[in-house]
């Protein structure tokens, strides 16, 4: 029996340090969706993307992963 697998494309939204603030950026986009003064504000806003099927990857100031929130 032939088994066909359909690879589901994973959407990711990243919260990345940008200068003295934070950026919310969808992977694959050239520009950030929005810039924030605080990381907490960016994390709060990113929950909308999570509800829309996107993983949210929260980075530390050194770029490493602090937390990976799976899509809801």
């Amino acid at each position, binding site marked *: 029996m032939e088994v066909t697998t359909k690879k589901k494309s994973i959407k*990711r939204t990243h919260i990345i340090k940008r200068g003295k603030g934070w950026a919310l950026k969808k992977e694959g986009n050239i520009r950030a969706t929005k810039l924030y003064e605080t990381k907490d504000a960016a994390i709060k806003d990113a929950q909308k993307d999570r509800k829309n099927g996107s993983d949210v990857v929260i980075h530390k100031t*050194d770029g490493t992963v602090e937390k990976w929130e799976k899509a809801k």
Partner: protein
Amino acid sequence: MGKSKIVVDFNYNVFINCPFDKEYTPLLKSIIFCLIKLGLQPKIALVSNDGSEVRFEKIRKMIEESDFSIHDLSRHKSNKVGEYYRLNMPFELGFDIGNKLYKNSNKKILILESEEYSVQKALSDLAFSDCRCHNSDLEEAIYVIREWFYENTNHIVLMVAPNIIWDEYNYFQSYLFSTLSNEGRSHKAIDRISIKEFMDYAKDYLTIKR
């Protein structure tokens, strides 16, 4: 106006002379990623760990086979009582400058510092040299390095905006996290991967992306 020439197969060597301590490692990783992204080949003593080879001989070879050098003199000051300040970095910089002068080569040398004008205070022979400051900030280091290569080479490279390199560095960290977690490695083990392994993963990731 940006430089439009894109040479993907740009394979110049860049010697990196920097501190090898735990605090500096994140900065070193971002510098390595930036260089690979720009199509350059980082050369670093940490990657070749043949115990039978004399350390300075290894460094000498790398300096001689590199078209560019990055010397980070961030650790010229002791941070606590009793701590020795590091002499390796200024020593290797001096050797590199001597090699360039006596061989009359066109090599380009970038000097980095973590505090503006601090190198000139510690090493007054470099008083009129152009040092670039990264403030110990990874994002800033990528901006500074990308800008310096843009100014100092005519053979440009896959020149990408510095913010794009920084964002891609963050994406790469999530790729590394996901790939290594799937292999069963703990967060601590992921943080502790060697510079050699980090470079190999960065090359693979950027090759796939290209």
